[in-house]
C-alpha cells in the first residue's frame, strides 16, 4: 500500500521578511483527508500537483517535468498586493508503504538540480540531515526509469511491493508503467473528469485500461502472463543448447569432409524415425557406413597388390596420369573458390561502409527529431515547418528540389533508414555466411590437394626407383586409408554420443510444449469471473448510492470480462449519461476498484485522490454519500479529496465530520504562506 504522511512545499523568493520562504507543510492521515478552501484559486490544485510531481506522475496532468506545474512554482507568487519572483522551489513528500517510511524530494525550479532528479531520503521528513538518513538520487523519464536500478519508478515499484507485469505493446513487451496505474487512482481536476481513466498517459500498451483493471484486482490473466514469460526463457535455453549441439556435430562432420542431413536446426520432439533420418554423408554422397566399407575393400585390395615396383609399372603410370589431371581440376576449383571469397569479402566491406553511412544518417536524423522538438519549445517557427518570415508552410529541407516533389518527414525518414539498415545488414550477413561456407570448401580442397600431390610424388619416385625396391606409394596409400578410416570411426561415435544429449533436450522440449499447451489461451479462470462480478456488484451498488439516473435500469449495467470496463447493453455508458451522471460513473468505478481489491486481496495501492469531485450539478447529498462510502472503508485506505466549500450546505456537512473520521486541511485564502508564520501553528498539532 501507499500512504502519504506529509507534504512540505518550499518556494524561495526575494521577500526580505522571514527569508522569503513561502511554503506549505501539512500531515495526512489514513482514511479520509480533505484539502479544502472557501474559494477557488487558493492553491488546492498546486498542492495536489506537488503530490503527483514528487511521485513522478506529472504525466497524469499532461506533460513532463516542471512544465505542468502552476506558475506559483516557476514564476511569481502573490502575497497581498505584491508579486514576488520565485527564485527556487521544490517539494518534500513523506510516504509510507505501511512498514517503512521514505521522503522524496524533487525541485521544480532550481539551477543546480535537474528537475528529472528525485532524491529519496530513507527516513521521515524530520530526520533529513541526520547522519543515519541516507539520501539517494534517482532519475525519472529517462529510458530505463522504470527498469533501471537507479530509475525512480523502479525504486517505487519495489518500495510498494508491486510486481508490475510485462504487457504487450505495438513492438516489444513492456512494463505496465506506474504512471498508467496511478492515472486510474488519481482523478485530476481537469481532464480526469472527462471519462473513466481519461488521464492515462499514452505508452502504446495494448488494451491498457483492461490491463490496469486486471492488475489492480490481481486477476489470474496476469499470472498466466508471468507463466508465459517463464516458459519463454525455458524455450530460449533449450533452443540455445540445441543449436550448440547442432553446430558441434556439423563442425566435426566438416572436418572429415562430410555433411549432416536430417538434423533439424531448431528443437523438436525426436522419434526413432527422426533419429534414423539423421545421416552423415561424405562429399562423394556416400553414407558413412558405405564409405567405411569402401575404404576397407580398398585397403584389402591394395594389400593384395604385388608390393614391388617392377610388377606395377604400367598401372603406376596410369595412376600418375589420373592424379595429375585431378590435381589440375582441383586447382581450378580452388582458384574459383578463392575468387568468390574475394568477391564476397569486398561486398562485405562495401556493405559495411554503406551501413556506417546509414547508421550515421539514422543517428543524426533521430537527433534532428529531438532538436525539432527543442526548437518548437523555444518557439522557432522553422521547427514547426512554417517559414519564420512569411508564415507559409515549408518542407523541412535545405535542398532546392522541385516544388511538387514531396519529401519525407523526419519520422518517415527514420523508418526509411531503418529499413535500409536492415537490408544492408542482411546483405552483409548473407555474404559473411557465404564466405564461411566457401572457406570450408577451400580448406577441404586444399587438404585433398596436399594428399594428391604427396601421392603423385611417391608414385613418381616409385617409377624412377630401382626395380626390386618396395613400392613407397602403396605404403603411403595404406597409411592414408587407415587415417581416413579412423576419422570416420570417430565421427560416427561422436554423432551417436550427441544423440543422447539430443534425446534429453527432446524430452525437455516435449515437457515445455506440454506446459505451453496447458496455458489457458483466452479462457478466463473461474476466480477471475467471480472477481469481475463482484466488481460489477460494487459498481452498481455505488451507482445506486450516488443516485445515478440516466439509465432507466441500472441493473442492466454489465462489466464484461473482455474489456473490464462498464457498459450498458453493450455500449459505453458515457453515451447515455448526463454530464453529472458521468461524474457519478467515475466516482463509482474508482471506488468499486478499491472496494473489490480490498475484498479479494488485489494489488490496489489503497490510495485515491479526487481533485474537485463536485463537478457539474452534483448535489450535496450525493457528495455526502461519497464521503460515507469512503468512511465505510474505515482506515484501510487513504482518500485525499480537494474540495471548494463554496456552498453552505457542503461546508456544514463537512464540518459535521468528527476529527477521527476525517482530516481537514483548511487552506484559508492562500495555500502558501511565509514559512515562519506557519511553523508555530504547525508545531501545536
Amino acid at each position, binding site marked *: 500500500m501507499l500512504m502519504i504522511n506529509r507534504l512540505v512545499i518550499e518556494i524561495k523568493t526575494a521577500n526580505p521578511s522571514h527569508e522569503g520562504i513561502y511554503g506549505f507543510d501539512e500531515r495526512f492521515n489514513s482514511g479520509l483527508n480533505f484539502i479544502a478552501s472557501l474559494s477557488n484559486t487558493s492553491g488546492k490544485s498546486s498542492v495536489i500537483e506537488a503530490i503527483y510531481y514528487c511521485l513522478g506522475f506529472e504525466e497524469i496532468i499532461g506533460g513532463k517535468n516542471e512544465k505542468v506545474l502552476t506558475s506559483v512554482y516557476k514564476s511569481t507568487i502573490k502575497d497581498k498586493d505584491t508579486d514576488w519572483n520565485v527564485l527556487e522551489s521544490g517539494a518534500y513528500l513523506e510516504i509510507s508503504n505501511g512498514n517503512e517510511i521514505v521522503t522524496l524530494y524533487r525541485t521544480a525550479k532550481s539551477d543546480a538540480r535537474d528537475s528529472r532528479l528525485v532524491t529519496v531520503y530513507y527516513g521521515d521528513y524530520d530526520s533529513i540531515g541526520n547522519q543515519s538518513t541516507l539520501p539517494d538520487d534517482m532519475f525519472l523519464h529517462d529510458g530505463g526509469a522504470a527498469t533501471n536500478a537507479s530509475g525512480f519508478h523502479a525504486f517505487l515499484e519495489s518500495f510498494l511491493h508491486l510486481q508490475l507485469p510485462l504487457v504487450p505493446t505495438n513492438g516489444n513487451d513492456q512494463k505496465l508503467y506506474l504512471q498508467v496505474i496511478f492515472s486510474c487512482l488519481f482523478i485530476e481536476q481537469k481532464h480526469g473528469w472527462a471519462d473513466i481513466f481519461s488521464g492515462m498517459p499514452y505508452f502504446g500498451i495494448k488494451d491498457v485500461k483492461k490491463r490496469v483493471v486486471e492488475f489492480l484486482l490481481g486477476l489470474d490473466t496476469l499470472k498466466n502472463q508471468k507463466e508465459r514469460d517463464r516458459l519463454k526463457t525455458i524455450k530460449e535455453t533449450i533452443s540455445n543448447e540445441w543449436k550448440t549441439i547442432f553446430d558441434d556435430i556439423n563442425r566435426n562432420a566438416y572436418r572429415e569432409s562430410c555433411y549432416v542431413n536430417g538434423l533439424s536446426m531448431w528443437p523438436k520432439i525426436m522419434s526413432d524415425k527422426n533419429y534414423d533420418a539423421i545421416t552423415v554423408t561424405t562429399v562423394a554422397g556416400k553414407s558413412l557406413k558405405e564409405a567405411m566399407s569402401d575404404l576397407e575393400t580398398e585397403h584389402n585390395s591394395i594389400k593384395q597388390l604385388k608390393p614391388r615396383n617392377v610388377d606395377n609399372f604400367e598401372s603406376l603410370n596410369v595412376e600418375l596420369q589420373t592424379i595429375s589431371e585431378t590435381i589440375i581440376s582441383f586447382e581450378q576449383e580452388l582458384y574459383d573458390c578463392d575468387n568468390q571469397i574475394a568477391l564476397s569479402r569486398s561486398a562485405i566491406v562495401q556493405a559495411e561502409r554503406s551501413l556506417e553511412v546509414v547508421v550515421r*544518417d539514422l543517428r543524426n536524423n533521430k*537527433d534532428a527529431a529531438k*532538436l525539432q522538438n527543442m526548437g518548437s519549445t523555444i518557439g522557432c*517557427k522553422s521547427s514547426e515547418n512554417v517559414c519564420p518570415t512569411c508564415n507559409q508552410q515549408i518542407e523541412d529541407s535545405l535542398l532546392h528540389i522541385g516544388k511538387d516533389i514531396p519529401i*519525407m518527414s523526419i519520422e518517415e525518414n527514420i523508418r526509411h533508414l531503418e529499413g535500409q539498415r536492415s537490408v544492408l545488414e542482411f546483405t552483409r550477413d548473407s555474404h559473411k555466411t557465404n564466405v564461411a561456407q566457401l572457406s570450408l570448401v577451400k580448406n577441404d580442397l586444399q587438404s585433398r590437394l596436399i594428399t594428391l600431390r604427396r601421392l603423385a610424388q611417391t608414385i613418381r619416385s616409385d617409377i624412377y626407383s630401382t626395380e626390386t625396391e618396395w613400392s613407397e606409394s602403396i605404403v603411403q596409400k595404406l597409411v592414408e586409408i587407415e587415417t581416413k578410416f579412423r576419422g570416420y570411426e570417430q565421427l560416427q561415435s561422436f554423432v551417436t554420443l550427441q544423440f543422447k544429449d539430443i534425446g534429453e533436450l527432446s524430452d525437455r522440449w516435449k515437457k515445455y510444449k506440454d506446459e505451453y499447451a496447458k496455458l489457458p489461451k483466452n479462457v478466463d479462470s473461474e476466480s477471475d469471473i467471480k472477481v469481475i462480478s463482484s466488481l460489477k456488484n460494487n459498481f452498481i451498488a455505488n451507482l445506486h448510492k450516488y443516485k445515478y439516473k440516466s439509465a432507466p435500469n441500472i441493473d442492466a449495467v454489465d462489466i464484461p470480462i473482455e474489456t473490464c470496463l462498464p457498459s450498458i447493453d453493450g455500449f459505453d455508458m458515457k453515451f447515455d449519461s448526463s454530464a453529472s451522471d458521468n461524474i457519478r460513473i467515475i466516482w463509482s468505478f474508482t471506488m468499486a476498484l478499491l472496494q473489490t481489491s480490498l475484498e479479494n486481496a488485489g494489488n490496489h495501492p489503497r490510495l485515491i485522490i479526487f481533485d474537485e469531485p463536485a463537478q457539474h450539478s452534483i448535489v450535496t447529498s450525493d457528495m455526502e454519500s461519497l464521503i460515507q462510502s469512503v468512511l465505510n472503508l474505515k482506515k484501510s485506505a487513504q482518500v485525499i479529496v480537494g474540495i471548494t466549500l463554496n456552498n453552505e450546505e457542503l461546508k456544514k456537512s463537512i464540518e459535521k465530520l468528527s476529527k477521527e473520521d476525517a482530516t481537514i486541511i483548511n487552506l484559508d485564502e492562500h495555500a502558501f504562506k511565509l514559512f515562519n508564520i506557519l511553523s508555530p501553528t504547525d508545531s501545536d498539532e
Partner: protein
Amino acid sequence: MDKQYLSEEHDIIFDAKPDAVPYNYRISYKVSQICLILAKACWGKSGCLPIKLHMVSFALCSESAMDKLLVFSQSEFTAPPIIRFDPAINRAVSFAIADNLVFQGQNGKYTLTDKGWSFVSEIDKDSTVLITEKSELSLLAKKLTDAKIKQLSDVWRNTYADD
C-alpha cells in the same frame, strides 16, 4: 500486355513518393549545428566569419575532414584544407536569422542572440543529442582563429589573382 486495355480502361497513375532527405539538409539539424558552432568554436561577442562557418560545418561531416582542420588550425605551415561552400548552410543561416536565433553584426559576422544561447543550453542539457558534434567541437574549441582564416584567403588571392 495489351496496351489499349491499359490506357483506356484502367488509367495508371504514378504518384511521386516522398524523397528521403539526408540529415545534413534538415533545417532542424543544420540550424542547431550552426548554433552549436557559434557557441563552442567562436568568441562570444566578436562573432564568426561566414567562411569559418562553412569550414567547421564541413569538417563536422566526417572525421578525416575534422582531423585536417585541426591540424591546419594548430600548425603554421600546413597546406590549407579544401573548403566546401555549401549553399545549404547559407539557407540554414537565413532560417536561423529569421527565427531570431542568430544575428548578423555590422562587421558581417554572425553571433548568437539570447534566444540562440538558450537553445544551445537546451541542447547541452540533453546528453543524447549531437554527441559526436559536441565532442568534436570541444576538440576544436576556439583554435581556428580569424587570423588563420585571413591568412588562408590571402593565399588564395596570391595564387589565383589574375591582375
